[in-house]
């Protein structure tokens, strides 16, 4: 067993909004508490895997602006999510890779583009409160988890620096599944919803027109500008549970795609669902982002998700082998089956 030590991380800039985050709460929705968790679960998972953590470990979600910190002792970090400029003592370092940061070095994440969020993971455990088993914010219930400039984050880590006669960074060739963050129009896969047929013409509209994310969007849901049709002869819908990724058409001419902090019940018709594999990308959508939708079958949706999860498993196994070989700390053995998302 490696010796763990506490490392203080002094935050000097906090971006627009930075929070402690993980993959969210389990078994909380039956109590009326949304699972929450990282909007881009893929990037958050990869960030953790790249530093040898379990993918559900607590990391930092940075939304916009500049996030900067200095760690007292060496730390092993990774930054994932939207393309951004990441520097250590002013020197650019790659995203989507493990990065060995020497003690007292200043790390800056800035200029995120073509997306909204960056995930910053540290090898080890961040000291923070938990609510219903998760560090994910639940601001409405009094658990905001916001990180602000001047704050010191406590990290408990078994990483004590990387030493090699010739290199300052371990050179790994890892099979990292890096999503495409293209600046143009995004294509999002969708499957049928319970009210697709009742909304006559919605199939054709969603398949053929372009939609734009509006500034009223947030972690509860993306609001999109674009043509909609309202379902006919449904009457008043009583409140029913609504899943993440549901396409709702409320009474106004607007399309809402529900996010991980949605209100769990609603009485609006659901005309489509984003596929599970498309959700991480939706978690990166900024106001002004244009998107098109592509109908796929349920089998296709399950298959895409399976491939996405298999890529994470493959990365986990590779990291486990490499970290063991070079003596970097591992918080988790590769899991036998994918964790429930």
């Amino acid at each position, binding site marked *: 067993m490696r010796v763990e030590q506490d490392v203080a991380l002094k935050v000097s800039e906090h971006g627009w909004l930075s929070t402690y985050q993980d993959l969210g709460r*389990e*078994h*909380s*929705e*039956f*109590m*009326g*508490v*949304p*699972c929450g968790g990282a909007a881009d679960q893929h990037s958050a998972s990869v960030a953790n895997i790249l530093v040898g953590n379990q993918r559900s470990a607590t990391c930092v979600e940075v939304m916009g602006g500049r996030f900067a910190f200095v760690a007292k002792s060496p730390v092993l970090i990774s930054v994932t999510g939207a393309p951004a400029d990441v520097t250590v003592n002013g020197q650019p370092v790659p995203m989507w890779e493990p990065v060995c940061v020497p003690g007292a070095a200043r790390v800056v994440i800035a200029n995120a583009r073509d997306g909204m969020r960056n995930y910053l993971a540290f090898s080890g455990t961040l000291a923070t409160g938990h*609510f219903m088993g998760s560090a994910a914010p*639940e601001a*409405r*219930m*009094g*658990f905001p988890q916001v990180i602000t400039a001047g704050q010191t984050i406590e990290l408990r880590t078994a990483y004590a620096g990387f030493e090699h006669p010739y290199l300052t960074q371990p050179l790994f060739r890892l099979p990292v599944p890096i999503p495409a963050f293209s600046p143009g129009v995004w294509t999002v896969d969708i499957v049928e919803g*319970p009210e697709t047929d009742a909304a006559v013409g919605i199939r054709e509209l969603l398949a053929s027109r372009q939609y734009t994310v509006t500034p009223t969007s947030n972690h509860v849901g993306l609001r999109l500008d674009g043509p909609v049709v309202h379902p006919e002869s449904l009457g008043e819908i*009583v*409140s*029913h*549970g*609504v*899943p993440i990724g549901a396409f709702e058409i409320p009474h106004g001419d607007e399309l809402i795609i529900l996010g991980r902090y949605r*209100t*769990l*019940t609603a009485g609006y018709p659901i005309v489509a669902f984003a596929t*599970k594999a498309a959700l991480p990308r939706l978690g990166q959508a900024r106001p002004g982002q244009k998107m098109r939708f592509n109908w796929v079958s*349920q089998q296709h949706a*399950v298959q895409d*998700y*399976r491939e996405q*999860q298999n890529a994470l498993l493959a990365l986990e196994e590779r990291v486990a082998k490499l970290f063991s070989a070079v003596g970097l700390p591992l918080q988790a053995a590769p899991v036998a*089956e*994918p964790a*429930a*998302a």
Partner: protein
Amino acid sequence: MISLAGVSTDERQAGSRRLREILLDVRPHGLVDVVAGIDSLLVEFDCLQVSHEQLAQTIRLAAAGRGLDGRVEIHAGNQFVIPMVVTEEFAPDLPDVADELGISQDEVLARLEASELSINLLASAMAPMMGTVRFPGQVSRCREPRTNVDSGSVMVAGTSAIIQPFPGPTGWKVIGRTPLTICDIREDPATSYKPGDSVRFKVVPHSEWARLTGRFLRPVGTPDPANEDTQDQEGTSQSAG
């Protein structure tokens, strides 16, 4: 989403509540969580661990094996008496609700107080959603939803009632406010109520507000000195926080 076919509204509600209990008890392989609707259940599952068809079959079997036939027995839950204050400030929609139902404001409150409400589900932020209020008709939602309603607000829509545990937006009509804290994440669990419990509302004068403010809601008969309604001496207000 699952709902029971071919039964009355009450049976559907009770049936989905019972099914929810069964699923949380059995926890079929691949089940992630369930979200209760008023008369339906949203079942969340990991599609890599179990297929849609397999899970549907498991749920049918679980339901069949537990005698879920509509005539369900509702488990004896805890009882709550929730004080509420109905001053103009705390009950802004009371006149509207009375107009819509065609009865006086006093009658609206009398009917609410006379109703033994069953908690059907915990909605957003653990809000207890309850039914059925003995109103002579349905209460509509606000034309313009409020962007923020204070915590403790007692609200109605249709023949359901709900309490807002935390400040937030809502389209439901506000007809009173309780001074009690009904959800507190520092408590474990954060609420003392759960689906299946029963609730009565009791209108209390505004003078009670200060004394009861901040107390954590506990069921009737709980030996909690902070929750003893009237026997408490004046001025010994205690906070559960």
